């Protein structure tokens, strides 16, 4: 038995801890206090483990064979730089949102709402997100997606009001469809290659007929494209997200689409490095950016406005991926990190606005800058960050993308550069419209004089501060993203980590057997 406690010990924790805590929280459903403690403790530990992985993965991908079954027979979890970075940001965001919802009085305003179900479901969601980030196996990735989606269905329809059931129907049906497409893609991949292990796929896919490979790539892109809300597969998002409770919307907006983006990055770079669909992706990125933001401009409800900007800014990430270069990928990764933070923050702030002003409709709000200046600051900083005003992190991510676009210099990348700038300006327009109407104009109706609980303001402030910290720590973070992109553009790094030459792995021989054969001289 290998009992050295290295970084590898940390790898399963982000999946196991929340799942275990979810079971515990469900068993303790009569004791809200205990549930709170369990959830916060579990997610704090996950955050600590993720930071550990972030440090550890910088020396090369960390691979763990689950249950000591060696890849490709067993399932492996792989934490490389990209996974670790995504994991760290997502667990920080998950923790902040959890604290926010605790401060809010948990989950829902309705008396009959199943509050006791909120914590277990939220933890299951966290486990699903972590599993998707860590999975080194296509089918396990599917399972991760299903875990987080099943949890998200419950969270979205929490309380079961008419409006939430309506929104939930659309969301659930679209998500089910994308899951089936993903499943079909896995079946076909297995038929073509005889494996679902990502590293082994990377070795075998180049031998597969190019037409079949293209089909597989398209199917995977289709499945992930629905999850990441890339135009024209994005219509479900602005319809379903805004009806959920504020913390739920925040965590969905921040994380769920980014899991899709992560899956696209992973499969595009590792499985299909020949990049034959990049032109298609570029067009989709352009359309996603422009059409998404035009949708945002038309909205009159802050939650929906932000949902549309969410769709729009997915385009930036796809832009970076589609350029298929190290610099483009690095900018994309940085942008994902920035966007997870800023989008979650904004939705949390909107929750505060809803609490303070009684509505999220821009027609009913007004004068908030005067009666709640703290709230105004909390909204203004991430809003400007989203629009990409220098020197904030959104600006830095965009500059990275624009630089690489200009450096590549094809007509299409130039079109994307122009599109990015236009989208950025339109984002500013939409955000300023919301700012003016909600914060500057005189209130059309008397606003209720409720306060905002400190338990909600605290985590929001922490996230705003984290967004600012991304700006100040942009140098190290960006170079980390560049190193992660460097790994991604060299799929052999990943493959070699999963199948090191000097062991029985790669032939599906477990380390126990190797030890026996070598007379126990193995580690």
């Amino acid at each position: 038995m290998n009992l050295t406690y290295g970084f590898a010990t940390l790898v399963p924790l982000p999946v196991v801890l929340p799942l275990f805590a979810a079971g515990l929280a469900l068993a303790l459903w009569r004791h809200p206090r205990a549930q709170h403690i369990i959830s916060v403790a579990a997610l704090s530990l996950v955050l600590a483990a993720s930071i550990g992985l972030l440090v550890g993965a910088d020396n090369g991908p960390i691979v763990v064979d689950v249950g000591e079954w060696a890849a490709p027979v067993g399932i492996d979890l792989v934490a490389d730089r990209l996974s670790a970075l995504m994991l760290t940001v997502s667990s920080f965001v998950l923790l902040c949102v959890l604290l926010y919802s605790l401060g809010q009085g948990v989950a829902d305003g309705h008396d009959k709402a199943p509050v006791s179900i909120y914590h277990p479901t939220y933890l299951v969601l966290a486990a699903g997100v972590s599993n998707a980030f860590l999975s080194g196996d296509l089918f396990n990735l599917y399972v991760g997606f299903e875990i987080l989606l099943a949890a998200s269905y419950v969270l979205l329809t929490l309380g079961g009001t008419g409006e939430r059931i309506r929104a939930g129907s659309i969301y659930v049906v679209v998500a089910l469809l994308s899951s089936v497409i993903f499943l079909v893609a896995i079946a076909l991949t297995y038929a073509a290659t005889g494996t679902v292990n990502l590293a082994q796929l990377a070795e075998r896919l180049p031998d597969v007929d190019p037409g079949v490979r293209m089909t597989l790539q398209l199917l995977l892109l289709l499945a992930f494209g629905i999850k990441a809300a890339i135009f024209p597969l994005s219509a479900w998002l602005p319809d379903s997200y805004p009806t959920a409770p504020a913390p739920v919307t925040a965590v969905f907006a921040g994380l769920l689409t980014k899991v899709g983006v992560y899956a696209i990055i992973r499969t595009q770079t590792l499985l299909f490095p020949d990049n034959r669909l990049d032109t298609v992706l570029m067009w989709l990125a352009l359309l996603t950016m422009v059409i998404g933001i035009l949708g945002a401009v038309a909205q009159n409800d802050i939650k929906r406005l932000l949902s549309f900007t969410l769709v729009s800014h997915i385009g930036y990430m796809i832009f970076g991926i589609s350029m298929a270069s190290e610099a483009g990928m690095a900018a994309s990764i940085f942008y994902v990190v920035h966007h997870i933070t800023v989008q979650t923050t904004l939705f949390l702030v909107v929750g505060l606005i809803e609490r303070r002003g009684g509505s999220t409709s821009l027609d009913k709000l007004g004068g908030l800058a005067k009666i709640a200046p703290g709230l105004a600051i909390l909204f203004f900083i991430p809003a400007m960050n989203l629009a990409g005003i220098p020197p904030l992190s959104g600006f830095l991510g965009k500059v990275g993308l624009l630089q690489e676009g200009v450096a590549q210099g094809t007509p299409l990348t130039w079109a994307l550069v122009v599109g990015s700038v236009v989208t950025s300006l339109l984002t500013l327009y939409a955000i300023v419209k919301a700012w003016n109407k909600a914060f500057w104009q005189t209130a059309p109706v008397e606003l209720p004089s409720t306060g905002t609980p400190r338990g909600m303001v605290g985590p929001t402030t922490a996230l705003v501060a984290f967004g600012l910290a991304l700006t100040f720590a942009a140098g190290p973070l960006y170079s980390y993203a560049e190193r992660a992109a460097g790994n991604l553009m060299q799929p052999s790094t990943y493959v070699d980590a999963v199948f090191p030459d000097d062991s029985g792995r790669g032939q599906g021989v477990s380390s126990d057997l190797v030890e026996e054969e070598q007379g126990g001289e193995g580690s």
Partner: protein
Amino acid sequence: MSSTSNLLALVLPAAEVDPADVARTTDSIDMTPSLILVLAIGVLFATGVYLLLERSLTRVLIGFILIGNGANLMFLVAGGRAGGAPLIGTTPTDQMSDPLVQAMVLTAIVITLGLTAFVLAMAYRSWQLHGHDEVQDDLEDRRVARPAARNAPAFEDSDTEESGATLDDEASQVYDETDGDGDGETDVRDAGRAEKDVPPPGRPGTEGGEGR
């Protein structure tokens, strides 16, 4: 039935890849798919897609189940020809069937089962609230579309025609192709609640133990 032919086009080349080109764990797997399985997959997908396009959640759910089963069959095809139980000692190695696809199909079936239960619960809740399980139009979409239609009368848009007395009536209208008498019975009271924005989540002063 174009989806069927598309599927055939997908499955056949994928399965016809010469096993010799691709180093498989067991080299001797016969990858020629059974025509009956392929046809069954096609029929399941075609009917499933048809049902998915319906407006009633129950039918959508049946469509999802059919497609899910089609995908499961596809896994069976992906595993090669059928064989004996993959246990060492009971079957010679070269006659074993591929256990991995079966494991994956089992996982997929379990997931489908759970999600089916959830969608059924959702359809039931919808029936409790509205007396039907049809997916309604989005209020906010119409709210945004209305001023646009007002500003441009020349721009004919029959979808935003004001057919109901209020926005709620319009949005809650049911378009059931098979509903002969066309009575989209709707609990207007509930739609009215949706209009007034879902009350701000969270109760002040309850369970806000953390951070106060």
